[in-house]
């Protein structure tokens, strides 16, 4: 892809920041992902939805350079890329905020913020961690996300789940991320904290970042998402723009609508009205969810 014409195309605003085309990944004889395609644009949120075992984690690991796709291609700004290490993905501006957030609970916020990329001053044996700069930048970056950290010396373990998430996001942004991959950032949180994290996602989007938001909760995905990729057992159930799908439809697809109907029928055949009513109840509930 060294054709100058194509390079020119990549500079046009219409080219997605990240595109995956027919990505397939096998682990031995198990098809973990099969011909998955989607796009992420700057200033947009692409949500990846799926239940446990849908292939969300595999997808993240391919995008962050931990695994390699067996087939299919990744394009960054329209240029085909191949990430052989997580460092390659980072260099391309793709930062992944993993579920464990890659933070050490007993360490101070500023130490965590710069962990692995510590600014130094001095030279030779006197080369030391520039704590003043680290604390100042931590405070400033957090401030830009609308968070006033009271004490950068506070251990990360004393922060709430949402705050920890925000430190991880601010850190990714500071270290040059253009595209954020957030791995189930809301799954372990209460309703209020999840709302706070959704707000950070919107904030990152408004700052012009591309965001891939991985979740199994359509109610978290729908309000912030611009695009929705639904995965099920390694296959795509569809890649929709927001205009093409309603929250109701999204929820139904997520819950596996047809399967649930079959389950309801099956339960109805069982002796005893209780089981049947449970089945109907289940069906009704998924229909009205939202």
């Amino acid at each position: 892809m060294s054709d100058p014409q194509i390079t020119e195309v990549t500079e046009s605003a219409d080219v997605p920041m990240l595109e995956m085309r027919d990505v397939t990944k096998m682990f031995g004889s198990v098809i973990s992902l099969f011909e998955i395609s989607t796009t992420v644009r700057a200033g947009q949120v692409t949500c990846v939805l799926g239940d446990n075992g849908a292939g969300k984690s595999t997808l993240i690991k391919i995008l962050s350079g931990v695994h390699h796709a067996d087939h299919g291609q990744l394009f960054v700004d329209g240029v085909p890329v191949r990430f052989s290490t997580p460092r390659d993905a980072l260099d391309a501006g793709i930062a992944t905020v993993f579920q464990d957030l890659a933070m050490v609970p007993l360490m101070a916020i500023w130490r965590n913020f710069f962990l692995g990329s510590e600014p130094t001053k001095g030279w030779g044996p006197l080369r030391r961690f520039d704590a003043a700069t680290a604390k100042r930048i931590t405070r400033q970056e957090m401030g830009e996300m609308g968070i006033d950290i009271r004490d950068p010396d506070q251990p990360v373990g004393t922060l709430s789940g949402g705050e920890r998430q925000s430190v991880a996001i601010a850190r990714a942004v500071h270290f040059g991320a253009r595209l954020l991959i957030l791995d189930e950032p809301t799954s372990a949180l209460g309703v209020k904290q999840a709302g706070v994290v959704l707000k950070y996602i919107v904030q990152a989007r408004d700052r012009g970042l591309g965001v891939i938001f991985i979740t199994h909760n359509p109610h978290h995905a729908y309000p912030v998402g611009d695009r929705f990729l639904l995965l099920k057992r390694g296959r795509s159930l569809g890649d929709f723009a927001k205009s093409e799908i309603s929250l109701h439809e999204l929820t139904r697809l997520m819950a596996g609508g047809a399967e649930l109907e079959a389950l309801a029928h099956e339960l109805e055949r069982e002796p005893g009205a209780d089981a049947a009513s449970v089945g109907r109840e289940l069906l009704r509930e998924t229909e009205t969810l939202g």
Partner: protein
Amino acid sequence: MTATTVTPADERVVAIGLVRRLLVKPEFGALVGAIVIFVFFAFQSDVFRSMDGAANWLDVSSTLGTMAVPVAMLMIGGHFDLSAGVQVGTAGLATGIMTTYWGLQLYASLAMSLVLMLAIGFVNGFLVTRTGLPSFIITLGMFLGLQGLNLGFTKQITNTVQVSNLDLVPGYHSLNNILGSTVTIGGAKFQIAIIWWVAFTVIASYLLLKTRFGNWIFATGGDPNASKNVGVRTNRTTIALFMITSAAAWFVGNTQIVRFGTIQAQSGIGQELYFIVAAVIGGCLLTGGYGSAVGAALGALIFGMTQVGIVNAGWNSDWFKLFVGVMLLLAVLANQFVRRFAEQSRR
């Protein structure tokens, strides 16, 4: 709690008072303990509070402390070294055999025994990082192996269980000035090893708190997976820590043979647990990621003061271990409380 409120007078700042700040410092408990122990024995015995007494208990503390400080760094990095004690013997024996039996020049022997010790530390670290096995098991193997090697080698070469006569080797006196001489303050002779102990504590503190390497030590011990994910070279950090511990064993082992001119084949065995005890009294968590070099030095000081204080007070020294055991339990309980305090979520 919403994290987004930007209020000038933040009510949550008040929650972190001075007491909390002090309590969260890992060495705080050891500092209080050291003061209590000093006051206690100073009242019991006038020998203990004299300059000669101080020179005595500082000497005992320094021997232990010079090892306890690197062992604390290793513990912060999430690992143990059960071979740290026997390595002290290995280092002294190596220098002794190379000079008095093989006729090597003294400083060349010192350099060679340093290389040997660094190699031992590297093997410890390499095996721990490569196999992923607990360092407890790996270094227990190293401990037993070196114990056999120390005794077997020494007997084979010297036909005794000790290496002596280092004081007859050319160049001994210049080395003795560095490692085994004394400084007279107020009529009492203070071992120069005390100064080395303080110097190593300062260097270790600087490394831990002010450098990138120190940040990596805390991270490696606190959460190795998270650290790896953000680009911390956890394996290198671990191997470096084991090598630092071995280098300290080299220093202490050679200090011993230089000071006394002789070293036993069994030297250092059993000390490894005391290094760990001093580090834990000094605030190190057994699980890693938390602790301090100053704390470990204070832990060693508590240890030395108690050992000497019991004798000075005219008590039966048989009770010393009971004292140590009780202090260890108290320290662990205090640490657990502090950790919960520090990790406590304010959701």
